[in-house]
């Protein structure tokens, strides 16, 4: 048996309240913890370029004031019981999460419901958070990888909202107003656009009853949720050079790849595992273990509602950057030229399925994954569908997908002495 084999799973219950709110309950009595997450089906991918950073700022303002509570009231209520409440904006959804010992769950749920339904966006808090966001944007420039990755994303996505950092740009954030936040909240924060996931030491009946009590009378407006429309993405690959006086050169390359609903999705997840995941991955073995070119080298393929990207990256000594970049490309594009061996294919499936299982160990992790599948419109069944699909992938399928997508990467090189590189 490996970790991918079916094992005893916590019981899962799914229901939809009268107001359209989807509720998932995952009962897991092992620890005296309840983790809950409210996922709102709108994230930074919904932003106009001029309003980039809107959802990120909206998420941080949720904890900074409601019709009844000030920012400090909220902080004190949460912190006095030792709970944690977090908010976040991702590309395809926004998130409010909480974690408490079981006894405190109701009180914190009540507070979170108030935050989500009745944020007041106080002027002073808005100014403070916007100021801190602008400072965070400056911090990003301190990290060579972040700088290089932002450049890659900009090149690959052009006018598409995925092309900007989730927290926006200095220009867009400076122009955001409280009205923008209120508008976005009114449009997207509604029960029929949300998934509530409760996991931990709680039974389904009380979990659903509590959700009903605090979120059941939240009514959706009559208007329809606006449809998403994305601009086309650039089709011609570019090469970007960023001179920086760093000790290492950072190489990032990205191949345009499809979204989660495409049949190639599972295959690309498998290929990214083969290439870039773990100490036995192809890039790690070939470029680090055999050739000593890097400390960090890996690949990833994010799950996206709209266009995704297949990214590989490494840091290397400046004198090795040309050979390293060629090495990265060769390893990736080889997958479109020669099929994986039977052993490689089986080994990669086991690795992917095992690590997938290991990524669902805590209440919070499992809840997040299933809630996200709901957001993506795949449903909780996708947890099983995805694993079955992975098991069924053939070497020919993998080769065809490699051939189709691994051809002409967008590249970014950041480092010193680039005139000679």
């Amino acid at each position, binding site marked *: 048996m490996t*970790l991918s084999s079916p094992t005893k799973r916590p019981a899962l219950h799914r229901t939809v309240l009268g107001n359209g709110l989807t509720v998932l309950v995952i009962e897991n009595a092992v620890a005296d913890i309840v983790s809950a997450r409210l996922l709102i089906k709108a994230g930074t991918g919904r932003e106009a370029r001029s309003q980039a950073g809107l959802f990120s700022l909206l998420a941080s303002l949720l904890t900074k004031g409601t019709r009844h509570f000030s920012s400090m009231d909220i902080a*004190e209520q949460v912190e006095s019981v030792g709970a944690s409440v977090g908010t976040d904006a991702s590309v395809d959804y926004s998130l409010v999460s909480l974690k408490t010992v079981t006894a405190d769950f109701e009180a914190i749920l009540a507070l979170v419901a108030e935050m989500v339904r009745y944020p007041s966006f106080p002027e002073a808090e808005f100014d403070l958070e916007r100021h801190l966001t602008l400072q965070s944007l400056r911090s990003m420039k301190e990290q060579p990888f972040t700088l290089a990755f932002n450049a890659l994303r900009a090149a690959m996505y052009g006018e598409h909202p995925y092309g900007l950092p989730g927290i926006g740009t200095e220009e867009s954030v400076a122009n955001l107003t409280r009205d923008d936040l209120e508008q976005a909240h009114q449009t997207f924060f509604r029960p029929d656009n949300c998934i509530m996931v409760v996991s931990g030491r709680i039974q389904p009946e009380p979990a659903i009853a509590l959700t009903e009590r605090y979120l059941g009378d939240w009514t959706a407006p009559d208007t329809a949720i606006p449809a998403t429309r994305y601009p086309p993405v650039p089709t011609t690959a570019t090469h970007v050079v960023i001179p920086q006086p760093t000790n290492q050169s950072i190489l990032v390359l990205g191949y345009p790849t499809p979204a989660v609903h495409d049949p190639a999705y599972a295959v690309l997840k498998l290929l990214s595992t083969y290439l870039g995941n773990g100490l036995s991955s192809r890039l790690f073995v070939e470029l680090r273990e055999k050739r000593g070119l890097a400390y960090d080298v890996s690949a990833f393929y994010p799950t996206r509602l709209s266009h995704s990207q297949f990214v590989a990256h490494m840091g290397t000594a400046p004198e090795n950057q040309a050979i390293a970049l060629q090495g990265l490309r060769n390893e990736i594009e080889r997958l479109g030229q020669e099929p994986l061996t039977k052993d490689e294919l089986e080994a990669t499936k086991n690795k992917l399925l095992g690590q997938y299982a290991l990524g669902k160990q805590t209440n919070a992790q499992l809840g997040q994954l299933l809630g996200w599948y709901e957001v993506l419109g795949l449903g909780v069944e996708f947890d099983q569908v995805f694993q079955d699909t992975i098991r069924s992938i053939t070497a020919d399928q993998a080769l065809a997908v490699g051939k189709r997508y691994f051809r002409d990467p967008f590249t970014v090189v950041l480092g010193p002495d680039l005139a000679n590189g």
Partner: protein
Amino acid sequence: MTTTTLTFPGTVHQLENGLTVVHQHMPATPVVVADVWVDAGAAQEPLEWLGMAHFLEHMVFKGTERLLPGMFDHTIETQGGFSNAATSHDYAHFYMAVAADALPTTLPHLADLVLHAAIPADEFVRERQVVLEEIRQAHDDPDWVGFQALSEQVFPDHAYGRPVLGTAEILAQRSPEEMRSFHQRHYQPDNMTVVIAGGTPLEPTLDMVRHAFRAFPTPPTTTPAVVPGKVDSWWGVRRQVLRIPRLEHARLTMAWLGPGIDDLDAACGMDILSALLAEGRSARLVRELREERQWVLDISSSFSLQRDCSLFTLQAWLAPDAVDAVEALICERLSTLAVQTVPTAELERAKRLLTNDFAFSTETPGQLAGLYGYYSVVANAADSYSYPDRIRAHTPASITSLVQTYLSTNAYASTVLLPTT
């Protein structure tokens, strides 16, 4: 508030050869984590072998007489598990997560790697390149650079003041023979703890460990003397200002020597102080400096328990011209804390945060293995579970006394990072 006394849920065993084994059966999980902790961190290095402990951690994965380089990673990962390692001043540890029924076949391999690292000469030369990349990458991270500078200031005569990664110059002079000698000397049963947590019962597990960890290397007759050095407290303010290229925000870090492992009650009290001052929006310094005065972008505190001497730090991200005012204000607030009793509600808030954090961090086998292993190396494993009780036992008076003893505003170190321009 309900108070439950937690008893250590695991068991500690000492095998005939002196090896310590810590075990916890978690019947509900299909995963097992095996984590081998060795009292052979950077503090065990002779001065001229700086970086050896960490480099050896890399070389352990380069195989043995029986296992070729990469075979272990490949075996573990293709069964759906993962492995990794880390080195600090007080320890090196090597761990893997696998399906419970894969433990009997994989544990012997982990033991073989750790006990019988072959350290082949060609791999040694190649892997040194990887470590040099790791060092280059670290030097591109301003926070790493700042922390090293601070450590040197606080521990000028102790290994804690030296970088775990070593330096390129010293690594260039090391040989595989020296590394083998370091390995043979320290990777001995009375220097090690094997932690096994997850879906595996005690008896077969103990037998597995006994069998896998039976043949230890023969200790060398001579190796250079190990002198971790001494820790001296000082009077006055040790202050340094570093100019860092590409820095967008200044950093101010203030550091104090804390109690050691011989006084765990006091050490837990330092965690309370850390939470009181800077954990969460209602913590004193966060509230005043970030939310009200808006002098900092962020401020955080950390207390790290180390064997020879722990370290208490406060770190702020801020504008260069705010550094002096913030440092002065922090000193003023600490002086107040030394003479004015902490209100009960505030103390309770910090206690609940910490005891809940403890509960939240004992959910998975990996978390538990890390917790037990760390305590086993610096103190002993069962002490980990006395943490909530030690936290609860603190009173306003004991906290005041800790401030007076450890957080003097007349004896601390501060490191300031400023941009070069």
